[in-house]
């Protein structure tokens, strides 16, 4: 069963009566354990596609399936539930909760899921350990570097073991060294835990490391290359 499947996915933004097509009949299939990048220049529609798959936007037409669940028809509460239980997010700007420590941020999604405290702590520390952040577990985000913050964001995304992690330009705010480290760690999570990653990026360092690159141009898939 595919982790993600889109069929003829179209998204048109409307503002002040002006319609701007962002995606045009995009069909995509992502299998479990894939390490895939959506590439393309700014405005090509990769972030829109990522947000549609994550249930943060609703499509104008077409279908989106996450595993066995068609998500087009879900109401906002059901979409939130889907994101909570099946999808992890990594954002460009880290977006950690500034009043929670690294460990508490990592526990956050599991807290929303209602996992018991000891189980949350254990899973959070396991993933922080994998991401080499265990020594920084009790630090607040403002006491961490950009690279460390993004590692915590990745920990938060994967700690609850979602079917899919969506990462929107995860290395855009990092220098090349930290980008390299982060990509290495995400690859490790992908290999060790079988976590499926889908990136939206134009960072060559990511594109080099992924197994598959889906290139978008003007809202359409222009190439789909598996390495």
């Amino acid at each position, binding site marked *: 069963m595919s982790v993600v499947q889109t069929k003829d996915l179209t998204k048109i933004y409307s503002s002040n009566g002006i319609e701007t097509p962002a995606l045009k009949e995009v069909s995509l299939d992502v299998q479990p354990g894939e390490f895939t990048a959506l590439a393309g220049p700014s405005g090509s529609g990769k972030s829109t596609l990522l*947000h549609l798959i*994550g249930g*943060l*936007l609703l499509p104008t037409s077409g279908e989106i399936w996450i595993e066995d669940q068609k998500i087009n028809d879900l109401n*906002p*509460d059901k979409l*939130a*539930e*889907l*994101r*909570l*239980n099946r*999808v992890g*997010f990594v*954002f460009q700007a880290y*977006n950690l*909760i*500034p*009043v*929670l420590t690294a460990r*508490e941020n990592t*526990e*956050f*999604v599991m*807290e*929303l899921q209602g996992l018991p*405290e000891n189980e949350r702590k254990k899973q959070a520390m396991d993933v922080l350990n994998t991401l080499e952040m265990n020594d920084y577990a009790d630090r607040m985000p403002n006491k961490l570097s950009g690279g460390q913050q993004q590692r915590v964001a990745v920990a*938060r995304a994967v700690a609850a073991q979602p079917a899919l992690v969506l990462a929107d330009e995860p290395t855009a705010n990092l220098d090349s060294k930290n980008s390299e480290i982060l990509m290495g760690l995400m690859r490790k999570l992908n290999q060790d835990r079988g976590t499926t990653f889908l990136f939206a990026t134009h960072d060559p360092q990511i594109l080099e490391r992924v197994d598959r690159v889906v290139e978008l141009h003007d809202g359409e898939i222009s190439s789909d290359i598996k390495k």
Partner: protein
Amino acid sequence: MRLTLTLAWRNLMRNRRRSILTLVAVLFPVMLLDIMWGMSGAVQRNLFDNTTLLQTGHLQVHVAGYQELKSTLPIIQDVRPVLDAVENHPDIEWFTVRLELPALAAHENRSRGVLVQGVEANKAQDLNLIDEWIDEGRMFAVGDTKTAVAGTALLDHLGVSTGESLILLTSHPQTGTGVLVPEVIGKISPPSRELSRFIVQVPLADAQALVKNKNAATNVVILLKGVTGPWDKAIIDGVATRLQNLLGDEYIVETWEDISPETVGLFDLLTPLYMIFALIFFFLGGLVVLNTLYLSVLERTRELGVVLALGSSRNRVLGWIEVESVVLAGVGALVGSALGIGLVWWGSFGFNLPGNFEEITKAIGFNPTLHLRMTGVEAFTSAAMMFVIALLAAAYPGWKASRLEPIEAMRFTGN
């Protein structure tokens, strides 16, 4: 839950100054309402004391039919059965016999209608009130006869000085006329200026001589054990019923509320007044809480967008804002209650209002010393009301936060 509380507390600590100001805005209404309850209790107690100690007692015994003939001050021809009933009554702290007669007071070529009160000298002293009223001279003592103390305003009107005589001419439908010429040995200023214009107190035996009946009385005034204010209504009503049953149909037992309904009316007037003030305080407190939480939501728009994107339900976001409000309101209400209860406790020992207030309160017949009083229910009500209002105030920012669209919220820049 622990993480939720941690999140709420740390969010409030982000902008400490604003949170502290909000806390003050929450605690002040609670504290002020507690003080207001305390003041209300003090004013009610003063009104009650003024009415019961100076005029009505907690209970009065009159002759049957008194209510129909009230204006003529009907006389109990033989007060002894009443005294037998009250003398060793377990609920009665104090009692005194009074004989009140309408009279004409005259001196040289001036006269005025007055109320002659025959009082028991020893019992009057028990209350320790007359001493405070004496402007000049002294109160008559046990065994004094043909002496009187009278209101300073009355004596000034008649041109009578202490040591001079006053002619008192009584006329009563049950006993006919009588004349007494006592020596004025004291000038008094009762708290009520009006009373000062027509009160003349004489020894009870002299008043009884005026009606030619040494067992006559118009009323027996009773103070009960364990009564400190109008809030002890149940005690007063209970004893009134039992005493009425004991005395039978020849007499009527009235409570202070029956005798002085205007004082009860004043209480009824004060309560809504306090409520209006309380509502204003709480409304303002609620507005500050709303403002704080609204600004806090606005500042955290991006963060709330992330939380929603991660899969938090909208109700949960609303719950977080409510928890922050609960923390703010809870701490504020607790501190406000502690301060309010502390101040009311301090004020319960009695204090005088500063400056001209003392003179003003005296002028309107009030005891200037206030003893603050608040019940546990009142203290709880203050804190609970603020708590509920803070929760309501959080509803709008909470609702706004829960309605955010994740993508738009994460793009929010504050512009």
